[in-house]
């Protein structure tokens, strides 16, 4: 057996104008505002922290029950409970500013104007490195579907945010659509610096004792390893169509899962639900990616990205 020289491979990746130490970031809504996991891992070792979705005003969120386990995943209908953009800047950002890690603010609005104002305020604050625009949330005005299900509306949100900020803008796509590539192309054209996908698949579950939904909100977002095959397929489809960087999200639990996304062409990955069951998941995934690169004699993670052989 030859002893492998464990020279650490280069891990930095570039998401448009945003440079990340490594391709492993956290997914919005699954990592709080960072602090919650500071006791478990060294936040500075993350590629980036994407914080919980921020709205203009603080949001109470949906009444409980909000979560339910499913086979290989979970449903959530948290309803974007968050402190609001101003409290985030005042109370949460100072902690994150002290970390040496890229901070990405996930933003959410009920109207075009909401998106505009949230983007404005975050762009004025110090310590936010990029915006991730969540267009996957249900919008009552649009027939129960979401901003993200219509290419025109998705593009409009994108250009509104782009106009307000000089920060890199990542647009986060919903999987609950017939053709995710058409949405991806639309937001790319509207100026998105990158796209991230997927958000949760809409699902539901019923309590047999009461014949009521397990979630007070009736439906919720399905996340976790159950959705990984769908996420990977969509990422691969989008990678083939757009030229901006694609961030892969959905059911990533292990380094192997993350590697699949990188191989099909994602420049980075976000770890979501995995944090809940294993608060150290991001670090284990990062270590596993490095090991794979070393074993495969690849010196730079960028040389692995997109090497899929269909």
């Amino acid at each position, binding site marked *: 057996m030859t002893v492998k020289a464990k020279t650490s491979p280069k891990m930095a990746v570039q998401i448009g104008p945003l440079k990340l130490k490594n391709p492993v970031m956290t997914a919005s809504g699954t*990592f709080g505002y960072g602090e*919650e996991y500071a*006791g*478990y891992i060294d936040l500075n070792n993350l590629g980036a922290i994407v914080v919980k979705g921020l709205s203009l005003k603080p949001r109470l969120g949906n009444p*409980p029950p909000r*979560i339910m*386990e499913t086979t290989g995943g979970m449903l*959530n209908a*948290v309803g974007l409970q968050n402190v609001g953009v101003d409290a985030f800047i005042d109370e949460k950002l100072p902690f994150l500013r002290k970390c040496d890690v890229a901070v990405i603010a996930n933003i959410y609005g009920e109207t075009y104007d909401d998106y505009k104002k949230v983007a404005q305020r975050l762009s004025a604050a110090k310590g936010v490195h990029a915006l991730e625009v969540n267009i996957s949330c249900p919008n009552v005005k649009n027939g129960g579907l979401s901003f993200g299900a219509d290419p025109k509306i998705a593009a409009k949100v994108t250009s509104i945010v782009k106009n307000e900020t000089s920060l890199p803008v990542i647009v986060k796509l919903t999987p609950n659509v017939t053709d995710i590539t058409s949405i991806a192309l639309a937001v790319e054209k509207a100026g998105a610096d990158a796209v991230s996908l997927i958000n949760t698949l809409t699902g539901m579950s019923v309590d047999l004792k009461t014949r009521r939904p397990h979630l007070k909100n009736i439906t919720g977002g399905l996340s976790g390893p159950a959705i990984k095959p769908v996420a990977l397929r969509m990422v691969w489809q989008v990678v083939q169509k757009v030229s901006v960087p694609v961030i892969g999200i959905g059911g990533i639990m292990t380094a192997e899962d993350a590697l699949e996304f990188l191989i099909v062409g994602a420049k980075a990955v976000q770890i979501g639900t995995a944090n809940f069951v*294993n608060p150290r998941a991001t670090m284990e995934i990062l270590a596993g990616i490095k090991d794979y690169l070393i074993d495969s004699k690849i010196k730079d993670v960028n040389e692995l990205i997109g090497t899929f052989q269909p």
Partner: protein
Amino acid sequence: MAGNIYIGEVLENEEVQENCFLMKLRTAPSFDNPVPGQFVMIRIAGLNDPFLSRPISIYSFSRNEIFCTIDLLYRVVGKGTQILAGLIEGSQVEINGPLGNGFDTTSVRKNIVFISGGIGIAPLSMLIESLSSKSEISSSQMIMYPGFQSISAVVGLEKVDRLCSDMNVCTDDGTVGEKGFVTQIFKKDIRQFKPEDTSIFACGPRGMMKALAEVLNKSKFICQVSLEERMACGTGACMGCAVAIKDKEGAMSYKRVCSDGPVFDLNDIIWD
């Protein structure tokens, strides 16, 4: 008192009562000393079915120089607890803990009343042990109302039995102790306790807590209750374990059972 991830080795996992198991786990000495009312999230590493970790209160805790021992008392109610029950000596589990804010024992009053429903005895047992070890508290102050569905469900009284001066076991069907819901039995005795002089600690199913709130009816009793809610992360990140709470100004907001609780002031809870 802050959570972290540990490997727990099963030392014992015994069915102490029909469907009720006592699991003794050995873990690293770096495990923080828990406060009564804190809990752990437990899972089998790598297993995706069941998918989420399960929250279980710490029933008992001890340490020596080389390891810590965590006891969990749990009832088998579904897939997750079923799998826990199947673990044999030497099996490994992953534990995240200690988590949450336990009971506040900084200023307990003269009378200390414990009210439990079913397996809700678990965190109270640790609390009673802990209070008993305080020199300023004597067993004569401590009165316990443990409620169970039936005699076959009575569990977790071993340690607390000799620590409380008064044990008022009750069962829904009267097969042992007084017959009736524990909140009703307590209500019969309530005149014995002067509200300003009494601290109440309670843990049990939601229905029991709500009944207790009605019994106490915003009197001057101080009542700390430990709540249960479905959890995903246990660390405050997912916002999944919400409970509606009134703040000082009376405004409602959703607090996290895992990290703002699981112990809350009964008066602050908004029932639906």
